[in-house]
């Protein structure tokens, strides 16, 4: 392994991406902020997949590429492997990480006001905390989508955070329309 930096550097950047886009210039447009944050992640995932696959044989099928994402890629980025991989064999995959690294320092204050500007008040009242954390998941979702799409698997990625706040287990779900899955 090459150069390293302290993890705080990365964590700080993530915090700042979200706060710049959500509280700064797109304070009143959360969907737009989300899309920008996702785009940043997409670029990173795209580039990382290029780097991390450099010294390995070509994948024979999509499943092999997905396994690579769950194991090697996940370990490089999140310092552990995925805990569980499920699929419905129709293009939907669910990746479960029981201790998702990037949220391991996060606690949400139940009375949180950080995202008080979200436009749909009913959704906000229902689960403000989940929404606040959700903003922090667009970046990793973007990374995964970027990596997969560069490996020839264009897809949509979403993160499920329904089991908040105590449980730090996360589902990343992605869907792609493919008929070549063996």
């Amino acid at each position: 392994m090459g150069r390293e930096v302290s993890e705080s550097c990365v964590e700080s950047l993530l915090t700042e991406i979200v706060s710049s886009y959500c509280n700064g210039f797109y304070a009143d447009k959360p969907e737009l902020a989300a899309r920008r944050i996702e785009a940043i992640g997409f670029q990173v995932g795209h580039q990382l997949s290029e780097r991390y696959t450099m010294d390995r044989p070509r994948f024979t099928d999509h499943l092999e590429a997905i396994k690579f994402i769950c194991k090697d890629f996940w370990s490089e980025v999140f310092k552990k492997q995925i805990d569980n991989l499920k699929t419905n064999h129709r293009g939907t995959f669910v990746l479960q990480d029981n201790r998702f690294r990037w949220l391991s320092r996060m606690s949400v204050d139940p009375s949180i006001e950080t995202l008080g500007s979200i436009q749909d008040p009913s959704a906000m009242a229902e689960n403000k905390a989940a929404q606040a954390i959700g903003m922090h998941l667009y970046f990793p979702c973007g990374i995964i989508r970027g990596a997969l799409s560069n490996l020839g698997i264009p897809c949509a990625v979403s993160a499920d955070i329904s089991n908040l706040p105590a449980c730090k287990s996360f589902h990343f779900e992605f869907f792609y329309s493919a008929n070549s899955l063996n």
Partner: protein
Amino acid sequence: MAPVAPRSGDAIFANVERVNAELFTLTYGAIVRQLLTDLEEVEEVNKQLDQMGYNIGIRLIDEFLAKSNVSRCIDFKETAEVIAKKSHGDGFLEGVWSWIHPGFLRKQKRKKMEKRKIENESVGLKMFLGVTATVGNWNAEGTTCSLILEDNPLVDFVELPDTCQGLYYCNILSGVIRGALEMVSMKTEVTWIRDMLRGDDAFELQLKLLKQVPEEYPYKDDE
């Protein structure tokens, strides 16, 4: 009371969680690229990067202090003496820097330089390797100094397009340093003197001490 030497950057680095630098480098690059798209004006991007750095600095400094043992050693009241201030400032900044970018020290240690040197020479990059940030160019009063980097993980892979000539790509660093120093009562102005992305031979940040805020004294507070 002579200050005890703080833990070296190496020792701190051994103590903190690490990730590979590529993730950091590429994430930062993607942020800059996205900001350029969204803010359009290069000047605005510079400002935003500096602000982000500042926000990071004011939080990071505590982790540095907590994990480096510096907390017990440096007493800023002693800084009344210029010489003391200098030596303090020196160790402190280098400490902060090596913590922010511990990769330097580590790389030096691992003797990987030879291989990389060859690689880099082969691509014609006149990059110095195995360097750490140095603090120098103090003025006579001890209020201005420079932080000089000959290597910088933020700019691995980066080539500025012609359309971004006014961009201070690494501006987040000046913000980090400014924020961190402000939290230990030193108001500074941080400006770029040299920038390798603009063709200079090193990165040089000039730190100018504007004022040393005295320690909080409750009676003067805004109560």
